[in-house]
């Protein structure tokens, strides 16, 4: 594009190429009729956008959040790397919370509905989202999944994200809290290696702590690393398999649930 007049270096009627001789401060628009651009030729110009790429997702997320608040439902977005025991933790949690309040689950995986089936086996309704090639859930997908789950006021919606510690950090789903699950088999420096997720989460669940005697895992260092990234992050140590710490975790949910129900 011509930086002086913003014209599109268009060719004009008489077939003469637009001569750009700005060096001599001469801006020749050619010798066509009236010396102007031929009509209909494309004009290049600059358009200011200044928009966040995630703005669209954030808009859907805000709509989800408003729906959840109006319904008095607490939504938790569970994130972790694959194999952290997220689904086992979720089914154990559902087992403990069943009968206390309405529960629902949105399962995100690239493929299969295995996890939704594991959840349904506990008697809690679940909707599976398969992201295909996608590495994260987005707020638009979750909004549609919410249509299929009618949750009563005071209920809890668990959203189990795709196992991935990178991409889901940037995609707000409209949840009240992101909860990051880290298992002690993964290495205590994960919060430093994948800081975005730990920065975005309000709670870290340190899972599989029953395995600590067999591992060289420094719990104190792991928590210090997480707080270096996110000074406000809460931490609960749990074993979904053995039940350690599960009352602390369900107690945390209970408090958040009351806040959400009160706001609705």
């Amino acid at each position, binding site marked *: *594009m011509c930086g002086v007049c913003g014209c*599109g270096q268009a060719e004009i009627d008489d077939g003469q190429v637009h001569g750009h001789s700005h060096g001599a401060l001469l801006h020749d628009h050619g010798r066509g009729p009236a010396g102007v651009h031929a009509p209909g030729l*494309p*004009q*290049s*110009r*600059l*358009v*200011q*956008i*200044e*928009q*966040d*790429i*995630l*703005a*669209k*997702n954030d808009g859907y997320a805000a709509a989800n959040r408003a729906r959840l608040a109006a319904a008095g439902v607490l939504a938790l977005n569970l994130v972790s790397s694959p194999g952290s025991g997220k689904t086992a933790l979720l089914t154990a949690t559902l087992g403990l919370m069943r009968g206390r309040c309405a529960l629902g689950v949105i399962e995100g995986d690239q493929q299969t509905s295995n996890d939704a089936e594991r959840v349904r086996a506990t008697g809690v309704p679940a909707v599976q989202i398969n992201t295909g*090639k*996608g*590495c*994260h859930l*987005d707020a638009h997908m979750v909004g549609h999944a919410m249509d299929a789950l009618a949750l009563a006021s005071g209920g809890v919606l668990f959203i189990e994200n795709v196992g991935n510690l*990178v*991409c889901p*950090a*940037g995609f707000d789903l409209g949840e009240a809290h992101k909860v990051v699950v880290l298992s002690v088999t993964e290495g205590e420096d994960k*919060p*430093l290696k994948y*800081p*975005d997720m730990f*920065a975005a989460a309000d709670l870290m669940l340190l899972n599989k702590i029953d395995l600590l005697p067999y591992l060289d895992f420094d719990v104190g260092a792991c928590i210090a*690393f997480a*707080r*270096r*990234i996110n*000074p406000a992050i809460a931490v609960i140590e749990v074993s979904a398999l053995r039940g350690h710490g599960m009352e602390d975790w369900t107690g945390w949910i209970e408090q958040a649930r009351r806040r959400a129900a009160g706001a609705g």
Partner: protein
Amino acid sequence: MRPRSNPVHELALCESVLELIEEQARVQRYTRVNTVWLEVGSLAAVEIEALRFGFDVVTRGSLAEGAALEIREIPGRARCLCCGESHEIAARGEACPRCGSYRSQLIDGAQIRVQELEVS
């Protein structure tokens, strides 16, 4: 940089960029995008090369096919919650260079924005 062979998350971001410029095409009345200027924070968890690759792929057959992608990288900045000093950071979780504290708040460098387009 994280070496990754499958830039799926950047691909999703590129799809969002294309949606945004297609929406703007109706409002601002253009039919062709020649250049896209993006602002990408160094802490935005975006790999620039993956973003370029994804952009070429998703814009194929669109009004932005073949458009140049100009990326302005914005360094990360944090403000120390202890001494108030603001400083440049290469990664989250770095200590304050003045007082050594890790208690800090990110103030810049996490954004991914479309700034400007050259259109015709």
